[in-house]
């Protein structure tokens, strides 16, 4: 990257726009699924898949909780493999337990100091730009920020 090329110009991945399109509900608003037979909730969504708990094939959309608590934290100061996140180093990543019990591995965003991110901290979901897809369009998806008002 340079002044002439302010964005990463080497393409590292080959995901198609169709793949991004198919995952939009989960990426934009944390839409998972729930088994209508046994009630188990899942993220990532298991639309059309078989429930590993009761073996029914009866999933319905389920809106995951949008806030939760950090249960593990790690700092990514390596940036490997580079996937369009070079501008954001170091990244602070966490396992978040949502208020409905679902767990996610996520980026904790808008951090001034990585030391702010601690196990037990409350977080809430935000929608953010992540990277450019092959067509040049921005990919949006979920991230989490510290919920300092909690």
């Amino acid at each position: 990257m340079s002044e002439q090329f302010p964005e990463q110009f080497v393409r590292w991945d080959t995901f198609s726009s169709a793949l991004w399109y198919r995952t939009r509900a989960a990426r934009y608003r944390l839409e998972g699924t729930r088994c209508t037979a046994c009630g188990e909730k899942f993220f990532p969504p298991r639309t059309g898949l078989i429930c590993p708990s009761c073996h029914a094939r009866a999933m319905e959309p389920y809106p995951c909780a949008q806030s939760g608590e950090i249960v593990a934290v790690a700092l990514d100061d390596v940036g490997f493999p580079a996937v369009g996140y070079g501008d954001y180093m170091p990244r602070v990543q966490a396992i978040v337990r949502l208020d409905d019990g679902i767990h996610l591995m996520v980026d904790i965003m808008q951090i001034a100091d990585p030391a702010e991110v601690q196990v037990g901290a409350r977080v809430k979901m935000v929608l953010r730009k992540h990277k450019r897809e092959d067509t040049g369009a921005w990919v949006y998806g979920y991230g989490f920020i510290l919920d300092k008002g909690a």
Partner: protein
Amino acid sequence: MGKILRRVMMIGGAITPPNIPMDWTWRQMAAEAFWNALQDAGVPVKDVDLVACNYNDRAIADSSPGPQIADALGILPKPVIPIANACAGNGIASYTAWNAIASGRCDVVVSMGFARSDNYDAMEAMNSQGNYVDFDYMLGLTHINYGAMRDAYYRRKYNVPLEAAGHWAYWCNWYARRNPLAASYSKPMPVLEELCADTPEAERDRQATNRGGVASAMVFVGEDVARRYTDKPVFFDVAYAFRPPYVGNFFHYPVDGMREYDMAELPGLMAAAREAYEVAGIKKEDINLVQVHDLTAYEGMMALEALGLCELGKGKDYVLSGGMTLESKCPVNTYGGGPAFGHGSAGSDFQAGVLENYWQILGKCGERQVKDARVGVNTSYGTHHSLDVVGVVQKGW
């Protein structure tokens, strides 16, 4: 479990040394390991009934590697089963080979793997459909990130000191200086105190080193066939199991044997170990030699716990009490492990452990030889422990 029609025996194997020439193609690598394994076993190419071969370049895009591999190995029209299951895939290849022999369908099967992973851009290859689900890797959360997260969580949950990780890496390096096939064989021995330090450099040194391109192969036969080729075969058994492919689901997956654990344990490896011990007819107390696939020292300790060598969270005590050394009743990672033998990906991560145990049982390991090696167990895993494989080799007749 169904009925096993006959025992499977291992009669030879080979692995390419570190730093193979850059101009070797994947075909040359595969042929090198295959040829050397057959030479080691005394088996002519024409006797091979089947090859099960793992590779890790770009599994989905390369949709028909079977005939190419069979052609390179000179066994056409006999079949090759191509397998793409990440770093542990050569364990799955071994499982496939084992099944072909145990069922009686084949007499001589070669299990192998190769990783000429610089054929493709690494990121492009990892982003194939075979790695990860749509909500981790796609959003920039990789298996490297998972490893750091898991280690931090494991350390916190079980209060594991840096010292334990430092000792783990130290003993891997100690063995590697006595194993000419290890990536760190000729490098200076690291200092224990430095390996135990809380620095980024020490953290890196406690993790796996890269072998670069690598290929390995092992020759299996039915018990009734083994005497045709050797008077020193060993019994070989293998099992594998999966856990959810999404990291968040490690904390809650509604299946027995999974829901009671989280990211600090390896329930897939526990399941694979149970089955492997049952198939091999051994108890964990019988094991006197272990090789684990460890990209970090912490997951090495987690693997010992999953194998039943110690209680959950007590891997640190096993290491710090000298459990890895040759004086232990069950030494660990005599091949050099991830930190010093090196990460071989699809090429060798499972087979390197099997081969070490095989050579140990045959008494061929020189300064790192384990006294009275009889039952060796090894582990390997793929991606972020979404698949785990356990191999067992035992002294034959």
